[in-house]
């Protein structure tokens, strides 16, 4: 709807003092007051009025409109698209008034007062009343009912006006619009119902003028017109900072607060204190967030007080909140034993040999044991645990492999973001070292903080200042660098400021195979799915979690060995965020500088890149040269010892599974299920799945793929069970080990608890090398083959 002629219009909104220099406004400020009549009542009014900026709270001057004058007289003019602190755009025309001597109805929100004006409003003019009624009915017809509007929004301003005009707010004599303009639920905090939108533009002005974010605009025309985010991106994928101003501004609930997670606070919790918006407002982290928005999420932020020694969260527990440290010191640690789990023959306790008939039988059995002596870190090919190895956790610090304890203070600001955003288990236990005060926030609040300009800047700054060191220590590519602490510090000082945090929503593509390589990324939290197009389809190479990195190959093309295997300067795989992912971006230039200045990092990176490329090349060549693409894609070619069941012979007696259980303390590691090749069922320890989903979600990055593509569980597994839950074939099992842990009810005392650790089938390789499942199969259905042997058998069958 077009605005009135330019001479009558008020110019764009004034939101701070600078605009006061605008000549027209200066002229108005010095102009004499105007005397006008509204509905028979006279008023003499200044030519400029003051409105309050909702963000700064400061008053600002703007030309006085008929609407302002009517307000002063106590006359109610209905408004829908207008708010006093926004630039009037007069698109809804609900505020139209009749001006004496003029044929056209004028919008009161926009028409500036002039001396001698005689105005009739909806209260006295039938013409105006009819016009507004028709408008209301038309909008009601176009305005679909938003979902649960009564719960989420409160009062719908359009319906209020309809009631005032004695209209039914839920129906219209005009036919409803048939076209579905759609919903957008991509944002975690704001739901958009385009059908409920009346295109009043209040959200657009709220976003652009008040918050200066310029994310929302209009798209399309006519019946297809609707609001859009950036270049018509889904809201959650746009640059929206989730300030909430659009929701606050929306008159119909088309933009509503989603309230994903209900507050967890109950009155029984004595250490919990509800916190009001007023209390939160001075907190620097919340200063950029709209107060009203915070009010809607009031229950999602609580203050918790912990006495020294009290546990705040425990490793392995599922959490949906993060903690902002206000005061005190906290101890972060991994309580699960840092031990290597393996199967061992039962030979009696210590040197004692099992005797007697039962002892004899027992000597043929085996059990799982955990040893501290032969811990292995497979992240760089299975070398023994590096003395400087660190375990990535969901906090600003990483834990030393040998002494997994660290301290957090208020300077570290926040921990638990990954559990909060992605519902992962807690990666470590946190205990109050001194008396501690924290703010516990739920997911929607953290989401807002991570996107709000001010809060984001603060979080990023804290990351650069405090967390980056811990994070880099957990990245294996820096392990050689960490041998010399001075060199590591120098690296930190040189590059600290050149690392930027990037936040991604689930499904967002970081780069695609074939794109030009520009940046290098370290994964701070969340999981990145790495896939590659290979003959026969897309192959998921890996899931890269906290402590991992992506994008190095395309930036290493000046290395001749790498240039021989990868297209120069191009990405060799597609990387996509599986869930909410935080990446640390290092630009290509900074990356090259790192390589030049720190040869030890370069050496490690090149080696890993070459390994990855060789592995991919071998896999690709095999896929091309064999007719059994699927066989190769499953990674079976690389397998050393597959457990294969001939299903034409197998009578499903489950003797194999029972034998496995008998050999492993009654806990079977074999589930007689899996992929089939012709009549063969492959039930190996790990199929190195096409999509190794078990890797996604490990909060401490303890599950990896070996060079042979088999999965391996590192010794720092905290036993949360996520990998076992995610493994579709049940090849990962949880096994309990008794450990001593501090009694939470009696600080200072130890108690025995059973800690779980994830274990996988090793085909009895640590026993006598004869898998019990094969040995116990009475029908000659279970066999053990290498990948190549098995391929020949299947190919022979196909011929």
């Amino acid at each position: 709807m077009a605005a009135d002629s330019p001479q009558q219009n008020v110019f764009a909104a004034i939101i701070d003092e600078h605009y006061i220099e605008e000549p027209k406004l200066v002229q108005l400020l010095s102009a004499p007051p105007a005397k006008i009549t509204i509905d028979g009542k006279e008023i003499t009014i200044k030519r400029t009025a003051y409105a309050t900026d909702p963000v700064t709270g400061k008053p600002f001057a703007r030309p006085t409109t008929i609407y302002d004058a009517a307000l002063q007289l106590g006359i109610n003019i209905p408004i829908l698209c207008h708010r006093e602190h926004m630039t009037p755009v007069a698109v809804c025309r609900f505020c139209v008034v009749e001006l004496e001597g003029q044929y056209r109805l004028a919008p009161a929100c926009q028409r500036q007062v002039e001396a001698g004006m005689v105005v009739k409003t909806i209260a006295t003019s039938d013409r105006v009343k009819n016009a507004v009624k028709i408008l209301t009915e038309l909008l009601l017809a176009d305005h679909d009912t938003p979902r649960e509007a009564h719960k989420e929004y409160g009062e719908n301003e359009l319906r209020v006006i309809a009631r005032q005009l004695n209209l039914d707010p839920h129906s219209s004599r005009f036919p409803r619009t048939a076209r579905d303009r759609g919903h957008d639920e991509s944002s975690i905090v704001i739901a958009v119902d385009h059908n409920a939108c009346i295109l009043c533009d209040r959200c657009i002005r709220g976003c652009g003028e008040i918050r200066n974010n310029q994310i929302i605009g209009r798209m399309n025309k006519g019946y297809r017109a609707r609001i859009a985010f950036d270049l018509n991106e889904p809201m959650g994928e746009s640059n929206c900072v989730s300030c909430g101003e659009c929701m606050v501004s929306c008159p119909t609930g088309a933009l509503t607060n989603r309230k994903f997670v209900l507050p967890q606070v109950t009155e029984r919790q004595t250490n919990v204190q509800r916190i009001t918006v007023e209390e939160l407002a001075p907190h620097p982290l919340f200063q950029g967030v709209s107060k009203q928005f915070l009010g809607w999420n009031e229950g999602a932020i609580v203050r918790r007080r912990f006495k020294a020694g009290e546990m705040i969260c425990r490793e392995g527990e599922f959490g949906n909140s993060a903690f902002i440290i206000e005061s005190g010191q906290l101890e972060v640690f991994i309580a699960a034993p840092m031990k290597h789990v393996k199967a061992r023959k039962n030979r009696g306790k210590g040197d004692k040999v099992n005797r007697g008939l039962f002892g004899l039988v027992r000597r043929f059995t085996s059990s799982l044991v955990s040893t501290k002596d032969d811990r292995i870190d497979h992240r760089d090919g299975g070398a023994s645990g590096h003395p400087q190895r660190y375990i990535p956790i969901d906090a600003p610090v990483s834990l030393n492999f040998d002494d997994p304890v660290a301290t957090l203070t208020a300077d570290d600001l926040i921990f638990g973001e990954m559990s909060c955003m992605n519902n992962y288990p807690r990666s470590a236990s946190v205990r109050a070292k001194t008396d501690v005060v924290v703010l516990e926030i739920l997911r929607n609040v953290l989401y807002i903080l991570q996107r709000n300009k001010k809060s984001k800047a603060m979080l990023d700054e804290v990351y650069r200042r405090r967390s980056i060191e811990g994070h880099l220590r957990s990245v294996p590519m820096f392990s050689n660098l960490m041998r010399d602490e001075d060199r590591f510090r120098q690296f930190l000082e040189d590059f600290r400021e050149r690392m930027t945090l990037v936040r991604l929503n689930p499904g967002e593509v970081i780069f695609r195979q074939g794109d030009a390589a520009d940046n290098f990324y370290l994964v701070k939290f969340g999981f990145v799915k790495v896939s590659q197009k290979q003959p026969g389809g897309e192959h998921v190479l890996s899931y890269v979690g906290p402590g991992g990195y992506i994008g190095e190959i395309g930036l290493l093309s000046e290395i001749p060995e790498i240039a021989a295997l990868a297209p120069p300067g191009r990405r060799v795989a597609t990387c996509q965020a599986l869930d909410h992912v935080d990446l640390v971006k290092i630009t290509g230039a900074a990356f090259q500088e790192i390589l030049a200045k720190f040869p030890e990092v370069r050496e490690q990176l090149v080696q890993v890149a070459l390994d990855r490329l060789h592995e991919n090349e071998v896999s690709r060549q095999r896929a091309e040269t064999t007719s059994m693409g699927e066989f190769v894609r499953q990674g079976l070619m690389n397998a050393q010892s597959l457990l294969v069941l001939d299903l034409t012979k197998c009578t499903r007696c489950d003797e194999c599974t029972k034998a496995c259980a008998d050999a492993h303390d009654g806990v079977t590691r074999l589930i007689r299920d899996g992929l089939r090749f012709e009549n063969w069922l492959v039930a190996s320890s790990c199929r190195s799945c096409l999509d190794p989903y078990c890797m996604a979600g490990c909060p401490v990055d303890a599950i990896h793929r070996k060079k042979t593509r088999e999965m391996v569980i590192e010794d720092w597994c905290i036993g949360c069970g996520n990998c076992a839950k995610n493994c579709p074939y049940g090849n990962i099992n949880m096994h309990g080990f008794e450990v001593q842990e501090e009694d939470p009810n009696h600080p200072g005392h130890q108690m025995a608890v059973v800690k779980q650790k994830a274990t996988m089938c090793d085909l009895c390789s640590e026993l006598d090398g004869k898998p019990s499942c094969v040995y116990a199969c009475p029908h000659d259905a279970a066999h053990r083959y290498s990948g190549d042997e098995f391929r020949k058998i299947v190919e022979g069958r196909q011929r």
Partner: protein
Amino acid sequence: MLIRRNWREHLPWIIVILAISVVSIYWYGVLAAETPWDRRPKGSDLALFVFGIAGGSICLFEFLLWPRKRWRVLRLGPTKVWMRAHIWLGLLAVPLLILHSGFYFRNFEATLLLVLFLIVILSGVWGLILQQIIPQRMLAEVPAETIYSQIEHVSNLLVEEGDRLVIATCGVTKATEAEPATALITAREEEALLAAAAASTHYTVGAVRQVGGVQGMVLESKPALQPVPNSEPLRDFFNQTAARYLKRGAESRSPLVDPTQARILFSDLRLALDPAAHEAVAALENLCDQRRQFDRQAKLHYWLHNWLWVHLPLSLALILLMFVHIYKTLQYWWPG
């Protein structure tokens, strides 16, 4: 044990038992020829006694397969070798014990023993025949086969998966308390499912996929869908029909038991829904198809194993009766 495919491995056994059988029959024939017409060879004659000892020992050995299976991890030779011996020696015992009887069937206890033995052998042979046929039928007819004892558990997982699929497609709305799906899943589970669905950024869908000769249960991780408008018919269909079927299979007496009716129902459902929801309908149809296969699997599994209900108890009875027979024979020899 499938014999046809690995007959070469069984050939030595076949040759040996045939040779022993021929030798035994020959020996019996010689004995019978030497014996006057007015009396038949008896069990106490050397040849028949040897047959009895051999046959009894074989029966005892056959019975030892049970403890061998019980102590699976003992390295006493691969169980498949025990099984081969079980099959062929069991068959060898037939001529030996029949010859041992001397074709004299007036003694009730000895005759009962022989009849019992033959029933055990026949049930074993019946089981062996079934093992040549049913595993292959199962392979062909049940691509979604799971572990038999886990069918109930996997069916529950199918219900959960279906519920997640419906929530991802229709949005998070609490099902009414009276709905069948709610009755199948406890209120707490429902809460947990709803919370998980609301909080999750991605969900997984499982299906049986076949590419050439490769087939199996494949899981795919997908970003959480934006709810499809007007997709409530899918939720209703799931709650009222599909969930019960997924949970109970053929016992539910659902129309989905019949594949033709199921196809019609799913076609109707597709017509009632936005095309954006058709992917979810296909996934749900796939889940129902898996459940149908589980029913088929249960039926085949029953036939594959039900002969054991005859074979095992009668084997035990046979062994007991055999000892009675031995005791009575010894008593006859040494009456004092």
